[in-house]
Every structure is written in C-alpha cells, then in structure tokens.
C-alpha cells in the first residue's frame, strides 16, 4: 500500500509530465497507421500516466477519479466498441469485421472506410488496455479494498 507522502519535487515533475505522457499515448494510437504503435502500446502509455498519479499524489484522490464502476465500464466499453464495429459491418451486409462496408455510413470510399474502421477498433483496444491496467494496479495497491479510504488505516 502507498503511504500518503508529500514531496514537492515528485509532485511538480509528475504534474508536468502526465499531460505529455497522455498526449504521447494518443499520438502512438493515432500514428499506429503510419508508424509502429497502435492500441496496445498507446493504452499502456496512457495507463502509465494514470498510474503515475496515485504514485506521486494521493491514492484517495486518484481513486475518486477512477471509481471501480468507471474502470470496469471502460474495460468492457473497449471490447464493446471493437465487437460493435464488427457487428455494424455485419448489419451493413458484409462479413464480421469487414470494415469496407462502413463506407455506407461514412462519407468515404471503401478503402478509406477500412482505414477509419481500423482507427475505431484501435481506439477500443486502447480503452480496454488502459482501463484493465488501471484496474489491476488499483486492486493490487489497495489489496482489493477498492472504495475504502486508505488514509484512515495509516494515520
């Protein structure tokens, strides 16, 4: 368990670092099309920024942002987006995950519809990876007691 400890250097550095890490995570996701990257890697970088916050700051403060409800919701939301795109292609008359059929609802041709379909499913992957990482971290660090106030046990 993390003890609540004020450290001005760590907190300031993290406050400056976390936005850049999040932007970099989104960059890795968005540039998965043109360079090495994608949902798995971007999700890990994104989750690292969220894990840095409880390490540098207060666990209670971080847990208020990442309630158990919310992390589990995001865990399933990513898989839902991915499978939902697959089902959408099925409804539009193609095979499962046949993104070319998305051109019926997107204002682009079949080839670019594949491009954007891949972007959407990578976003789903990123959401799931990020939420699972954060969920595992919070459950490990609170020994499974998610919603209790941890500070009371230490003071």
């Amino acid at each position, binding site marked *: 368990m993390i003890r609540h400890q004020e450290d001005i250097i760590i907190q300031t550095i993290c406050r400056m670092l976390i936005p850049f890490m999040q932007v970099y995570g989104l960059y890795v996701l968005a540039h*998965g099309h043109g360079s090495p990257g994608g949902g798995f890697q971007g999700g890990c970088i994104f989750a690292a920024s969220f894990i840095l916050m409880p390490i540098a700051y207060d666990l209670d403060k971080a847990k208020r942002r990442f309630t158990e409800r919310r992390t589990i919701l995001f*865990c399933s939301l990513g*898989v839902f987006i991915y499978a939902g795109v697959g089902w959408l292609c099925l409804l539009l008359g193609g095979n499962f995950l046949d993104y070319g059929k998305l051109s019926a609802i997107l204002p682009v041709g079949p*080839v670019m519809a*594949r*491009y954007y379909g*891949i972007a959407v499913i990578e976003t789903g992957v990123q959401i*799931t*990876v990020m939420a699972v990482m954060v969920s595992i971290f919070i459950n490990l660090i609170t020994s499974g007691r998610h919603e209790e106030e941890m500070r009371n046990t230490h003071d």
Partner: protein
Amino acid sequence: MKKFLGVAIAIAALMVLLQGVEDLPPWGDPNQPASLHVSPRYIEKSLTETGVPNMVTAVLADYRGYDTLFETAVIFTAGVAVLMILRRSAP
C-alpha cells in the same frame, strides 16, 4: 508408477510432435508456401486494399481482425480475473 506413466506419455507426445516438425519447411526458406503466397499478397495489396501505410497495422487490425478482437477479450478477461481474485467487499 503414475509418475512414470506421465513421463512416458509426455515423451510419446514429444515424439509425435517432432515427427510433425520433420515436415515443416526449413527456417527462413524463401520457397516455403508462406513466403510464396501469404507474404507477397500482404506486401503488394495491403496499401491498396486498406489504405493503411503501415503493413503491420493492416495485418493486425484488418486481415487478422479476429485475432486482435480476441486478444482484447483476453486482456479484458485477465482484468476481470484479477478483480475476482483480489477484490474484497468492505467488511
């Protein structure tokens, strides 16, 4: 006796698997079927078919979309499993 039987079954299974390895093409052989049919297809057509400049992404998310979908499902399952093992309700 039971342990000996297990080891014997394992060795027999290993022999069967090694028999199968015999028939695989040599490592890195440019004339193996995977190099002759699958790879050139992806290299030549992935950009025109998917519009994605990164071939790895095209294979990962489009041609092998099922694989990635269930990889994501595996990660989701891992998260839920960790939750089931670690989670304790408040006393």
